[in-house]
Each structure stands twice: as C-alpha cells, then as structure tokens.
C-alpha cells in the first residue's frame, strides 16, 4: 500500500530528472523573470503617479496576482500538465507505460504532481522576488503563495483532464479553453462565472487581503462568498477533474503506432 502511494512521487522524480534540459530550464527562468521585470517596472513608475506608498499596495498586489497565479501558473501548467499524455503518444512511449500494472493512473498522477511542483517553484520564486522589490508586509507573502499553490493544483487538474480527453491538438484546446472560460467567462457577471477557477482565486484574493473596497466595486468579479466556500469549490473542481482524468486514462485506447 505504501509502495503504491509513493509511486506517483517516483514518476515525478523520473519526470523532473528527464526534464533537466537547457530548454526546460530556460523556460522556467522566463516564467520567473517576466512577472518580476513587469513588477519592477511598475514599482519604479509608482512615484510618478503621486499615490501615497500605502495606496500603492493594492494596484501592485493586484498586478502581481494577475501576473503570477493567473498567468505564470497557467503558462507553466500549459507546458507541463496539458501534454502529459500527448507527448507519450507522439513519442510512441505510451505503450511502455500502459502495459505496466500500475502504469496508467500512477503515471498520470505523477505527471500531474510534476507539473504542479515545477510550475509552483517558478511561481513562488517570482512572487518572492517581486515582493522583495515591492517591500510589503507578510500578509501578501502568504496570500500570493497560497493563491499560486491553489492555482497550480486546480488548473493542473483542469489541464490534465484536457490532455487526457483531447490527446490530439491538446495545446490548442487548452489555450482556447483558458482564453474562453478562465479569462472570459470568469469575468461574466452571471452564475456561470462561479464555475471557473479564476473567479474563486480572485474571491480569495479579495477576502484574504481584506480589499473590501475592490470587492464591493466589482462583486461579480470578486464574489461575495466566504473564503471557505471558495476553497471548497476549488477542492471540488480539482477532485472531480482528477477523478475523471484517472477514470478516463484507465479505459482509454490511445493509438500506439501505425501498422504498415
């Protein structure tokens, strides 16, 4: 039993080991550098706005939230979680994994963990460097860190599901879904936006940072539900999507190779 529980972590270790390539490391550095560079530039421009320092926290914090939990995390996960299955199919290595007694589910879980760990590490480093530049109190450190983690966990499950179902044109499907649902529908002032991950994350941002003014000015965007509801919704989304992915991957008949 313990062996089975540790197997996804062995898959993660193998995946991280094989991902130590210059291209992957460069991508990680870019994911870290671009929000930090933008925050540094914005922070440098703040004195020109004439805003007192205590008033600068909210726009800088909102920008950091947008750049890291909503952009960096999604980009990292798009690169890692979405092609979890399609890269194995295209590389014709899926059959090696599928014929293992615990291969399908364990590999999917392991790849999901890899995507989360790889992306979250970039997100946390980006947040830490950005907050060092901004120089804010401790609250924003843990809020941004927690939101990045929740974003990785929930969006990772979403992209894994997309990867499992749409193993052809995976990236295109995931990008389309992200633009339409997570960046489009999540801002729609209707019930439907409550089913998006970004709506829940924005709600938690406003709650945990006590940005009541921002929330009351855009209730449909930031929600009015308590933090517990948002957390429950994110947990439900993650568990449901991972559950469907694991069920689907166990039954899928992915192409292995062309005959002839």
């Amino acid at each position, binding site marked *: 039993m313990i*062996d*089975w529980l*540790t*197997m996804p972590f*062995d*898959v993660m270790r*193998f995946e991280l*080991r*094989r991902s*130590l*390539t210059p291209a992957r490391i460069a991508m990680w550095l870019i994911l870290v550098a671009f929000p930090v560079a933008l925050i540094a530039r914005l922070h440098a421009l703040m004195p020109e706005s004439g805003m007192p320092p205590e008033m600068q926290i909210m726009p800088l914090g909102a920008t950091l939230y947008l750049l890291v939990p909503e952009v960096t995390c999604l980009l990292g996960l798009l690169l890692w979680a979405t092609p979890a299955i399609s890269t194995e199919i295209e*590389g*014709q*290595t899926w*059959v*090696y*994994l*599928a*014929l*293992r*007694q*615990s*291969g399908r589910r*364990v*590999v999917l879980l392991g790849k999901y963990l890899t995507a989360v760990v790889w992306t979250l590490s970039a997100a946390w480093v980006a947040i830490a460097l950005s907050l060092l530049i901004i120089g804010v109190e401790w609250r924003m450190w843990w809020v941004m860190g927690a939101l990045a983690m929740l974003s990785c966990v929930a969006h990772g499950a979403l992209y894994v599901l997309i990867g499992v179902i749409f193993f052809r044109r995976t990236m295109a499907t995931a990008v389309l879904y992200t633009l339409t649902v997570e960046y489009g529908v999540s801002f729609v002032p209707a019930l439907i936006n409550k089913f998006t991950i970004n709506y829940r994350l924005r709600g938690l941002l406003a709650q945990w940072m006590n940005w009541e003014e921002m929330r009351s000015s855009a209730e449909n965007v930031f929600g009015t539900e308590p933090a517990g509801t948002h957390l429950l919704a994110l947990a439900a989304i993650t568990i449901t999507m991972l559950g469907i992915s694991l069920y689907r991957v166990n039954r899928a*008949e992915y192409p*292995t*190779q062309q*005959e*002839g």
Partner: protein
Amino acid sequence: MSAMIELNHVTKMYGNVVGVNDLVIELPEGAYGLIGPNGAGKTTLINLLIGHLRPTIGNVRILGSTPSSDRRILRQIGLCPATDVLYPNVSALEWVQYQVRLHGIARHECQRLAEQALETVGMSATMHRPMGTYSLGMRQRTKIAQAIAHEPQLLILDEPYNGLDPVGRSDMTRMLKNWTAAGRGLLFASHVLQEIESITSSFLLIFGGRLLASGTAKEIESMLAKTPQEIRIVGRDAARLIHRFADVDWVDSLQLTENRKELRVSLRDPTMLSTQIAHWIASDSLSIERVSAADGNLAAIFESLLRHHRGES
C-alpha cells in the same frame, strides 16, 4: 491448466475499419512466431493481448485472466514494442528501473532487477550512459531489458531484431532460445520469416486481420498439400525438365529464366512432384543443383497461404 493465450472469436474494429477479424486461438505455454506483412494486424493483436485495446466482439484471456479488466496480469507479461524509445538524457538503468517500478515492485528490488536484465542483454557497460548517446541496436537491447526485467511469464516481442547488427542478432537469438528453454512463454512477431524460424517452429500466420494458419511448418505444409505452390528448380539442365512438366496435369504454369538455369513451376498438387522429380532426373541423366520447395521454407508456405486466402487456389 489455463491456456497461455486464448482468443475467443475476437474482432477489433477501428470505426469502420477491421483491425482483426474473428480470431480464434488457443495456445498452450510455449514459443510461437506471429508472422504477417506490415498492416496484417500483428500490432492490433498484441495490443489486445496486453489489454491496451478491448475487443469489439469476443474475449481475450492471457494466463487465465482478461488483461483489459484485470491489470494485475500485466505483471506476468513483458512486451518489447516495435516502436523506438528515446529519453535522451535518461540512462538505460534509470529507465528500466522506472519501468519495473511501475509494476508496483519495491524500490530496492527495482535496481537489482534492472541491472540483471541489462546484463542479460549485454548493456552492463553502457547502462549508466544517457540513452541519447545510444545506437539503434543499444536502444533495442534496452527495450528488451525493460520487457524481461520484471521476470514475466510471457514475453511478447514485436520485430525485436530491428536495428541489431549480426552479432546482436546472434546474441538475441541465443537469449530467446534460453528464455524458451527455461519453460517461459514467447510470442514473437515479425515479417521476416527467417528470424522466427531460428527461434521456433510453431507459428501463427496473420493477414488482413485474419488468422490464415497456425501450427508447425510441417502441419501447415500438409494443410497446403492441395494448394498451388511455386517451386524453383536450379541447374544446368533445368530447361530439359520442361517437356516432362508439360505432359502432366498437376502443373499450372512454367517459367524459365533468361539464363535457362532456373525453372519456376507452379504446382496444383505438390505431392505429385516428390514422387516424380527424382525419377525424371535419374532417367534423363539431368544435372540439377537445387529444388526449392515449400517443405521447411516458411517463405514459400507464406506465399502459398496468401494465394489461398485470396482465393487463387
């Protein structure tokens, strides 16, 4: 005792395309060759055997279990697929260890089993090098190692000689003979008949998704006794046999090569040839070097079966 492989009227459809069609096979433990040209359905059959595909109709049982629903049986199956594998910056040892681990085998056992398998295929010296630096032959050996590392009861190989040099082929043949001698099951898919003949004399012939024949070469030969077969008669006096064949009613056609040293004869009843040819050669004092017939030659049997399947007999 349950059969090693049991297919009960198995059909696999890909939409409207038939992958394999109404396969009925029951094989006791042993070594078998799976022969068929590219596109015959060999890989579909293998994917059914490992439970990667579920049959549209019928059922598949391996060592008494249904592989698509009871995945525990996969622990008893080793597969070396035809497709290449390349994780450029991972060593053979890491990869084989990883594959063994996915069977749920304890971590500390995985390294020992992986090293043992890599030693068996002659990769001990290079198993710590990244796979990106391997030749095709080395990758092929590594693939075999991952198939045998968890010590399965049934080994399925899809074109295992691909990329191997003559020494590698010889080593592979020796290893597979040892494998079967140890009483373990082997299914060996290839479209190169000589490769299979060197390992086993029992085979399944698949074409167009259908099982054309199964059994030993001799059994197939007797089955084909009434099927037209082509033979080649090579020698200085080959042309002088033409008038003999022209006078009998069990010959379909004759073809003499340009140098007049090879005569190709299509026989309607091959059994008649064996009773006549020696007599003709002796009575006419002919110089004949070689008569290549279907007996013992899988290539000839294969050609004849295909003609039979196409309704040309």
